């Protein structure tokens, strides 16, 4: 087989031409054959359509809303769909669900839905509603915040709402031992109950400020929370700030133009396809959403929350009787979690768990965390007083399983 040599290409295919430098200039042009007709292609066009993400995986986790380990419907504040936490403090109430209403033709299967179940027609100054994703500082060092090379960011998402008008995204650069900076940025939902794609640019110098590019704008390089993005649905006047302008302080949820999404029980809000990109993009130049396999998405969510055992006879772990009335059970985690150790998240009640030993099984009411746990392995400690443990012979091996259809055992290391 004939070998193609670089020198051969240079000399024989386009003879006499100067080789292109390793990094083309914007003014460079490429010649391509379009059905035999030679045409010119500007490098600026190639650059504008090429995906040049500096990050391998999406910064924002579960932007497709596919993973929801805790369940599919949530009426309380806190984490619902993986990585998304609701904070509602109005006189109204909302339910968050994982929904199947999605923009058609873009490869999404799930959305996060917020349904107003109790209205609040007038949001007080100190009330608000919104849901947030927090980001780990050590994942965001490439933003170069705290230097003059701080990067632009682009947030894009698909949104649908019964209530039209001005909404806000709240961006937060956490203090991390320095100074906390925030800015709300407005966007408009134009058509009721219609999926719309939004693209929002966040400059490190938004509002002609130099807070983010100054030394106190640096992002803490640790597993602590360093950045957050909140989708605001209502905001009292105590939490208002100027649109698209970084400011020192906290709780800048929105501008004064933010609609009150909670003013009717007919209001529903859906969100999916949320992506955060390094760089400044428009709707024309934005790279495609990085669709992941469910397994990859789940694995990245599991750094922050792992539903380890749920319902029926789901295994929790193996262990032994340390003493006649004390048991240790080890649970090996599917991934390294953010915290060492994480919090145990569980449902409790009579016979919610069963300890199998010596041909029998005893009901266990709840599980308690022992400090000898790590990022990768959680140690559960059981005794008679707290957990309902029956006594057995020291060193007896045993198996802990879920015993109720309502039993849940998870590990929580959320930000």
């Amino acid at each position, binding site marked *: 087989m004939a070998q193609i040599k670089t020198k051969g290409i240079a000399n024989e295919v386009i003879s006499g031409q100067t080789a292109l430098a390793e990094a083309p200039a914007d003014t460079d042009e490429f010649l391509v054959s379009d059905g035999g007709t030679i045409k010119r292609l500007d490098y600026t066009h190639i650059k504008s359509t090429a995906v040049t993400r500096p990050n391998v995986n999406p910064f924002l986790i579960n932007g497709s809303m596919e993973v929801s380990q805790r369940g599919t419907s949530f*009426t*309380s504040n806190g984490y619902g769909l993986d990585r998304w936490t609701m904070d509602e403090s109005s006189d109204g109430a909302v339910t968050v669900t994982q929904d199947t209403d999605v923009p058609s033709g873009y490869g999404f299967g799930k959305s996060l839905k917020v349904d107003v179940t109790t209205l609040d027609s007038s949001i007080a100054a100190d009330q608000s509603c919104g849901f947030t994703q927090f980001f780990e500082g050590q994942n965001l060092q490439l933003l170069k915040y705290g230097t003059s090379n701080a990067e632009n960011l682009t947030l894009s998402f698909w949104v649908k709402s019964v209530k039209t008008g001005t909404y806000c995204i709240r961006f937060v650069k956490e203090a991390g031992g320095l100074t906390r900076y925030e800015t709300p940025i407005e966007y408009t939902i134009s058509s009721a109950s219609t999926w719309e794609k939004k693209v929002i640019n966040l400059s490190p110098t938004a509002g002609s400020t130099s807070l983010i590019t100054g030394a106190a704008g640096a992002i803490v390089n640790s*597993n*602590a929370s360093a950045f957050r993005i909140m989708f605001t649905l209502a905001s009292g006047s105590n939490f208002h700030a100027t649109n698209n302008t970084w400011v020192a302080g906290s709780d800048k949820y929105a501008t004064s133009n933010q609609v009150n999404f909670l003013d009717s029980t007919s209001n529903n809000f859906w969100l999916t396809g949320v992506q955060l990109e390094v760089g400044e993009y428009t709707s024309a130049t934005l790279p495609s959403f990085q669709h992941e396999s469910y397994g990859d998405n789940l694995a990245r969510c599991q750094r922050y929350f792992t539903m380890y055992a749920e319902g029926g006879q789901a295994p929790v772990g193996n262990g032994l009787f340390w003493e006649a009335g*004390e048991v240790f059970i080890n649970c090996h985690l599917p991934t390294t979690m953010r*915290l*060492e*150790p*994480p*919090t*145990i*998240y*569980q*449902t*409790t*009640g009579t016979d919610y768990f069963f300890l199998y030993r010596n041909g029998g099984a005893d009901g266990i009411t*709840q*599980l*308690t*965390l*022992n*400090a000898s*746990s790590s990022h990768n392995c959680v140690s559960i*400690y059981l*005794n008679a*007083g*707290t957990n309902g443990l029956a006594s057995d012979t020291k060193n007896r091996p045993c198996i802990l399983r879920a015993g109720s259809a*309502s039993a849940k055992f998870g590990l*929580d*290391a*959320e*930000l």
Partner: protein
Amino acid sequence: MFEGCTIKYNSFEGVNQSIQITYPANDEGIVYAKSVPLLEGNRDYADIQEWVADGNTIEEAD
């Protein structure tokens, strides 16, 4: 923050290991609980510390 909750230490050989938060039953009658490590950086532990700073007390372990 922890209205209606029971908040109690878990101990082993006399040393506190974690804090058990038991929440009131929800509308479906399900009782949720957390077993929280005594760890700075854990948001549940931070919430408990804030609750204690407000004048509340964690029950001693059994």
